[in-house]
């Protein structure tokens, strides 16, 4: 069984004065991987600027727009259709020897292989007073530890928009105890990395209509690397494992590598941006 998704993304920007020079980059195209198969991509903008399909610095597909005419308003619309195979997040061969897994993460080769996803970033650097905030227990498996961390993160922060913004660091998250999916994901990454587990920030879409937190906009969750198993997805915002409801777009060290929309706009005066995301899933036999 699988799900046929149809995703609709819009962004509307309006500016007080004429804009003469602007560049945008969208990182919103779902990734093609073992569980995600593409059917179609449609992309358009209101002023008929050329849509350039390219990649970001980590090789994920992007769309870039560079209008050649002036404008005060511009809107973008994207539609994706894709088939998502049913994912059972518990369907992996668990490694029975916990001690060996904990030894593995101490090896230099392991640390070198996953350097990108083990080192702190400005978003995920944990202040020294919180270094011991969540210690992994070597008596249970790494996967079980990560599940505990998922649950712990879910309980630690209350989902609330407007308290944090795109620049919020883990220190502020711990102190404010409120945040959105991005903050849950950063906190999870920070703690997993402190415990020697590679963790990467994932950006994507979430199936709507199941009452999940964070489904009205693009969503963020985490993939953590479990030795002898591989990358597994955790969604601390909803205290679940990433599965059939999660449509992955990109991953990176933190939000900065995955920002869905980047714009370089030279304009004066005020401006407004509105985004909408619609994700519809239909069961397929």
């Amino acid at each position, binding site marked *: 069984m699988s799900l046929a998704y149809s995703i609709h993304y819009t962004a509307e920007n309006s500016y007080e004065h004429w804009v003469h020079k602007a*560049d945008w980059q969208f990182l919103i195209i779902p990734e093609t991987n073992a569980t995600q198969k593409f059917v179609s991509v449609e992309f358009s903008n209101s002023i008929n600027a*050329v849509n350039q399909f390219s990649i970001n610095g*980590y090789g994920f597909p*992007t769309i*870039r727009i560079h209008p050649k005419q002036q404008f005060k308003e511009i809107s973008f619309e994207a539609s994706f259709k894709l088939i998502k195979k049913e994912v059972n997040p518990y369907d992996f061969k668990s490694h029975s020897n916990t001690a060996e897994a904990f030894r593995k993460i101490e090896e*230099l080769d392991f*640390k070198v292989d996953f350097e990108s996803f083990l080192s702190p970033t400005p978003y995920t650097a944990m202040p020294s007073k919180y270094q011991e905030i969540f210690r992994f227990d070597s008596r249970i498996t790494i996967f079980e530890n990560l599940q505990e961390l998922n649950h712990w993160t879910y309980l630690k922060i209350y989902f609330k928009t407007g308290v944090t913004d795109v620049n919020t660091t883990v220190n502020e998250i711990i102190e404010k105890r409120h945040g959105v999916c991005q903050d849950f994901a950063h906190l999870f990454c920070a703690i997993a990395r402190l415990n020697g587990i590679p963790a990467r920030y994932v950006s994507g879409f979430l199936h709507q209509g199941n009452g999940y937190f964070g489904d009205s906009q693009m969503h963020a969750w985490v993939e953590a690397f479990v030795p002898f198993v591989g990358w597994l997805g955790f969604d601390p915002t909803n205290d679940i494992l990433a599965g059939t409801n999660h449509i992955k777009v990109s991953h990176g060290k933190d939000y900065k590598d995955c920002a869905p929309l980047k714009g*370089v706009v030279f304009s004066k005066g005020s401006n407004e941006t509105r985004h909408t995301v619609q994700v519809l899933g239909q069961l397929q036999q």
Partner: protein
Amino acid sequence: MQKLENQIFSSYLRNPSLFDEIFDKKGDVKAVYQKLFDLYGAHSIKDYVKLNEKAKSSFFNQGITFQVYGGKENQEKIFPFDLFPRIIDSEEWDIIERGAIQRSKALNLFLWDIYHDKRIIRQGIVPMELINSSANYLHQMIGIDPPGGIYNHISGTDVIKHKDGKYYVLEDNIRCPSGVSYVICNRTALKRALFGVFNHYQTYTVTNYAENLLDLLETVKPKGVDVPNCVVITPGMFNSAFYEHSYLAKTMGVELVEGRDLFVENDFVYMKTIKGAEKVDVIYRRIDDLFIDPLEFKPDSSLGVPGLFAAYKKGNVTLANAPGTGVADDKAVYTYMPQIIKYYLDEEPILNNVHTYHCSRPDELKYVLDHVHELVVKPVDEAGGYGISIGNRLTKQEIETVKAQIKDHPRKYVAQPIMSLSVHPTYIEDTESFEQRHVDLRTFTVLGKDREFVLKGGLTRVALQKGNLIVNSSQGGGSKDTWVLKK
């Protein structure tokens, strides 16, 4: 202190404890300088004052100036030029040239490795902190194969001569090293002022830098390009090195552009011209990594070109130097240079590294604690000269404080012997006479595909303040024409 007999050097005070480039320990003029010494000595100091004025105005008229930041108003200044050249004989130069090539190649291989398999780290030769605690390590560069396999196309290696008469490398600059235009202008200025002196020496030319740079940049063109279109990109006319950017573009015969003159379409880079868009293949960029592409790096940068990094990643354009080279000119990497050279080239370093003691190693810690008075102690993670203590300038009490700090956090500190830069007679305006001043030398090495070029000459920088060891243009330094002699 001893006085010398020569019109112009009559008041030259020679401090015998310093290594003088033109006088030996006994105070005799070294053979290679003898002719020059006689020629200059035939002039009176009055002539010299006049010539000095002439040279200064020649620089102003050519517009060879630089900006001093800070202060109330930004000022255009000329880089003080000294009329008495520095001579490097062919044997000494051979060491410098081979050493500079060796270091540049080793650094290039090091960069390739740390952006690919990271073998040198896996084998425990350098610690992982060199990359994961460096702000200059660009994860976007992982797995990218730069055209021709070259990262540091242009390297500026700073060397000094210590009082033992040997050359030591102080720094490898492999981001956007500057100063080469001064080398060429210094030569021009000296030729205008004292043409005759060149008749007595067989000196290598320095004006061939631009053509060699262009030749070598063309060897690292992107795949599928026949005759590459090269440009120089500058942050703009307010940059302190703008003169150099325009000079290099002009002498290479290529366009000088700013970010706004370029655009990216379907992952190719184009230049706007009055005849329409023109594809660009090789960019000699004088903009720092984080400013080259606002969509990939600093979003508020208006200097770069949106989409440039994607074009680079797809192999459609060459950037010289490659993004992410900065990781290899960090202070911490410097201390591992002998091991890096040995590891990649299986050679002994030709140029000396200033020896570095790592306080994290117990035996070296003991040595450092016993010799604080004769060492420079530096924290490994601080930039900009903070927390540095120079042993011979500390009081007894301060030495004890430094020792205590090192004992508390041995991992945080490294120590190096205090280096004594050689001195060279330099004309000092205030006293209207020649005095000893400390000098260093910046060399310029260009790496291309299977070929390399070292400019036979370099920028000899002079610390104009008496006793000052910092020879930087922003710190009130000057420079000298530097002659490399043919065999």
